[in-house]
């Protein structure tokens, strides 16, 4: 038991770092994920994550497999995509989801093209699918720093963000620029995606953010309780995923995301509200 569960994390530095990194990603990312769902932006978030690719690829082209270059490139690309598609939606009558889709498809194609200019298929795989076992100290500080900024930032903009989610007109009537908080939130989301893509790759960066958040909505109905459920769920998925990938020699990113999918599936089936179980069980209705 010890050999299976604990020893890998004790004996191997890269497993230790991967565990710490996934703890940070879980805590910061899942709170972002909860808000992405509540803002009905889960798919737009995904599009945004894909949009990091050309930036990361450009960083790769200029600096090789260097974390700062790729992270900065990814962050800039993500922010640009968010701002440009937001601006397109505001200035034309195009809906924001459509403009996001257009922007991210462009970005994805551009990114793959840029990587292929110089890199090998292995590099492309690394950027697309990540390598959490290759997380070094530098990457760990990036992830930990991101989590700190995310939690402090979210706490600061919590109230306007919540009101902007459920009653934007009220916020506007109070003379508050809701769009500002929307973009601050998107900025935090992009930051988390950048931190996650080193570990999980641009294609699955959102896995640890969204899946636990969606799963938590089958158990809780407030922002804080959803986050409180999503974060440990994300961490558990990451830890178990790491162990399985370690012992079975499987790529860690997909295994971790699949573990999170299992959490989602379990919650979908057995959650306390709006789940399949709740739907199929017919408790006696109340008197009033």
């Amino acid at each position, binding site marked *: 038991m010890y050999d299976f569960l604990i020893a890998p994390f004790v004996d191997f530095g890269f497993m230790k770092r991967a565990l710490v990194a996934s703890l940070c990603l879980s805590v910061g990312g899942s709170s972002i994920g909860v808000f992405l769902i*509540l803002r009905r932006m889960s798919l737009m978030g995904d599009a945004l994550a894909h949009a990091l690719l050309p930036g990361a690829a450009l960083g790769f082209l200029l600096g090789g497999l260097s974390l700062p270059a790729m992270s900065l490139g990814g962050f800039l690309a993500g922010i640009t995509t968010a701002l440009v598609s937001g601006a397109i939606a505001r200035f034309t*009558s195009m809906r924001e989801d459509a403009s996001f889709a257009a922007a991210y498809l462009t970005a994805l194609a551009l990114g793959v093209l840029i990587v292929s200019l110089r890199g090998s298929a292995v590099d492309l795989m690394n950027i697309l699918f990540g390598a959490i076992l290759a997380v070094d100290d530098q990457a760990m500080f990036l992830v930990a720093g991101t989590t700190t900024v995310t939690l402090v930032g979210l706490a*600061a*903009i919590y*109230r*306007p963000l*919540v*009101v902007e*989610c*459920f*009653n934007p*007109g*009220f916020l*506007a*009537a*109070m*003379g*508050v620029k809701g769009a500002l*908080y929307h973009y601050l939130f998107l900025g935090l989301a992009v930051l988390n995606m950048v931190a996650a893509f080193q570990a999980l790759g641009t294609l699955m960066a959102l896995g640890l953010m969204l899946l636990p958040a969606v799963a938590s909505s089958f158990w809780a*109905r*407030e*922002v804080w309780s*959803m986050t409180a459920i999503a974060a440990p769920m994300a961490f558990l998925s990451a830890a178990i995923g790491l162990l399985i990938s370690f012992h079975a020699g499987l790529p860690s990113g997909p295994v971790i995301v699949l573990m999170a999918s299992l959490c989602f599936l379990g919650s979908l089936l057995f959650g306390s509200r709006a789940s399949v179980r709740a739907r199929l069980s017919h408790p006696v209705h109340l008197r009033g």
Partner: protein
Amino acid sequence: MTAALKLVDLTVSYDRHPAVHHLSTEIPAAEMTAIVGPNGAGKSSLLKALVGLAPRVEGRIECSARRIAYLPQQAEIDRSFPISVLDTVLLGRWSRFGAFGKAAKVDVHDAQHAIEAVGLSGFERRPIDTLSVGQFQRVLFARLLLQDADLVLLDEPFAAIDAKTVGDLMELIRRWRSEKRTVVAVLHDLDQVRHDFPNSLLLARELVDSGPTARVLSPENLLRARAMAEAWDDQAGACEMPLSSSVIPSGAKRSRGTSSSRVA
């Protein structure tokens, strides 16, 4: 009669088509005014322009109110959002604690009072997605109570609301009037307007008439309003009526009459 609101040559447009067209009128202070008109007559757009939510507003709005409270149509609120009744009502004190401040004990206390006043005691911790349409409207009225505004704008406050709730909420509105607050409500039930609102503004993109309800809601006026509202012309050319005052860019602070006021 002092005016709470003076509109001068107000035009609100979407995609260049005017929803409210060259409207000039006054709305008396400390009085209840109903805004009446067919669908698409620009009633909601007018209220939105007053609180700065309309995309493009031309003309001038002079407002002597210190604080404005605005009740949107329910469709504009995401009622599935996980937030409690108490938290929703507390938002009425936004002007006090803003985006970052802490709600004081007295605010929570007042919020509980407001919830009691709208007949929802015991609902404080309930998430809003468990409420009926009528109950949720009571929550929004509790929030209005907390806003303590001297100008209250209500956009279809009684749409899809049962008679009992309408009665209770009307009671609150009458109390506002006795507290010298100005109430402006978009309404469709003409009998109710005749019964409860001494003052009316009949709108069909352009002003049909405004003043005492009995005069404004004459059959001729209503017929005229209906005919006017049905004309949306895709081929309409540019309006040649000169603007009597400067264009107000959307989102900018509008000039307001007597005091420097802000929406509360």
